[in-house]
């Protein structure tokens, strides 16, 4: 029954995309529209362009800048977030500034970034980092503040040194929120990757889309758009895989891993213990609902 329902879900999820693609293919092949070229033409152009001629020219630079900006945002966001989460005065003092800066759309700073860093990679990395740091920062602060005081009491009573408390208690305890922030930031990062490449750039997928449009190569433009969609989809999927692996204990502690828990522990997957252990566990919510309610 389980396998059957899983296959059913898969089929349902598979059907709609296929229907959309086939529908567009049928319509576009007889529409003869300049703006909506036939599916076959888009497909052929895609293969010509992205397999793999322009991958090193446009795709890799785009992904490289995204990775650099995102990693920078994670390091700064988590680092500063930990400090602000633990240090009340600093948090209160920085609050107005943080609120102002995060309300500022990162693209508004593109002209400034160009002045500061020129038209090369750095200005784009700066824009991506600047836009993605806030969800990570704010979620880290929240995660640190939501720490169980009893875990800290335990650490103190066992005389665990501050560095280890930070590394082995505070950071893991905040990690569900940190991941929630990182997930929000990932989509923001992809948006900013494209936008930053549309201004004063000479490569990148965003640049490619804009150039294709300007030179009326509409099928090429569409391949760039489809590629960005695919990139976003794959990155998000990868992120969820990593998150599920790193935070498996979080889902387990929330009583959402019951089947796995039973298998791993080697005895009956007694639901009672999980309920006792986490009185606020609400198994009815979907597996990622808790960790995906970010502050953004």
């Amino acid at each position, binding site marked *: 029954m389980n396998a059957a329902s899983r296959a059913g879900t898969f089929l349902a999820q598979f059907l709609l995309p296929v229907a959309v693609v086939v529908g567009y293919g049928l319509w576009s092949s007889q529409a003869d529209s300049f703006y909506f070229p036939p599916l076959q033409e888009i497909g052929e152009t895609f293969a010509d362009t992205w397999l793999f001629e322009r991958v090193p020219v446009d795709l890799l630079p785009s992904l490289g800048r995204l990775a650099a900006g995102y990693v920078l945002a994670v390091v700064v966001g988590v680092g500063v977030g930990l400090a602000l989460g633990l240090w009340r005065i600093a948090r209160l003092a920085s609050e107005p500034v943080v609120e102002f800066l995060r309300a500022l759309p990162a693209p508004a700073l593109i002209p400034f970034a160009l002045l500061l860093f020129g038209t090369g990679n750095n200005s784009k990395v700066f824009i991506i980092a600047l836009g993605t740091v806030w969800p990570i920062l704010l979620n880290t602060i929240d995660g640190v503040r939501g720490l*169980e005081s*009893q*875990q800290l*009491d*335990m650490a*103190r*009573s*066992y*005389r*665990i*040194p501050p560095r*280890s408390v930070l590394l*082995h*208690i505070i950071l*893991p305890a905040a*990690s569900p929120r940190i991941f929630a922030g990182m997930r929000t930031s990932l989509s923001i990062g992809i948006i900013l990757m494209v936008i930053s490449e549309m201004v004063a750039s000479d490569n990148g997928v965003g640049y490619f889309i804009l150039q294709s449009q300007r030179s009326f190569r509409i099928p090429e433009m569409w391949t760039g758009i489809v590629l960005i969609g695919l990139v976003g989809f794959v990155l998000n999927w990868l992120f969820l895989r990593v998150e599920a692996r790193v935070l498996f*204990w*979080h889902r*387990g*502690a929330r*009583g959402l891993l019951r089947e796995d*828990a039973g298998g*791993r*522990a*080697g005895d009956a997957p*007694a639901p*009672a*213990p*999980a309920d*006792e*252990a*986490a009185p606020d566990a609400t198994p009815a919510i979907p597996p990622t609902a808790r960790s995906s309610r970010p502050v953004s």
Partner: protein
Amino acid sequence: MLEVSHLRKVYGNQETGNVAVGDLSFTVGEKEFVCILGSSGCGKTTMLRCLSGLAPATSGDVVLEGRKVSGPPKDLAYVFQDYSRSLLPWMTVEGNVSFPLRYKGMSKQEARAATAEALDAVGLGNRHRAFPWQLSGGMQQRVAIARALAYRPRVLLMDEPFASVDAQTRSDLEDLLLQVWERYAVTIVFVTHDIDEAVYLADRVLVLQAPATVSVVADVDLPRPRDQITTKALPEFARLRSELLSALRH
């Protein structure tokens, strides 16, 4: 072993603040099992926090083996009431138990041996790779006890450790605690609001009245090893229980 003299803890202003511990004095001998009995809100937890060095006393002294307690001492372990919050869900059972040992100056090998022995003592030797949330409530509290034992404390402070498990598990845990108390030759200060539990476990029961002052001290001369059925059927058990009950209601 452990001497508490004129301990006082006031939250807020000295004069007008909330007095959690009034004027508390008692001593606990080497390897003694002392239960501290008091109703909810009489300042038991605050008292334990002062004894463990987690909270500073407003005045008075706590002296452990001749040394004044001013922060968490290294010969003391604390078992919290809420096991689900004091165990770390991202570490395995083994990881939780061995975590504090690294910082106590134990070598890796010693820590591993102490962890295995403590888990064995609480009957969880075969669950060392499980995560706390895969275990029942009673088992989780046993992990917390194993963590405390592996730390090799001279004194074990326990704050209503069995208050949130069912009655059957609770009596099993009481017997388990008596076993490890003998095995590890440790001094135990056990806070509870349950009269039967106090009498069953202790050498001596102190009754606390708000704000955490000792009102009655009862020596428990029940023979050891104790048994849930026969010990609790003794006339002396019933006598102590009613003595303590009237002291609590007083």
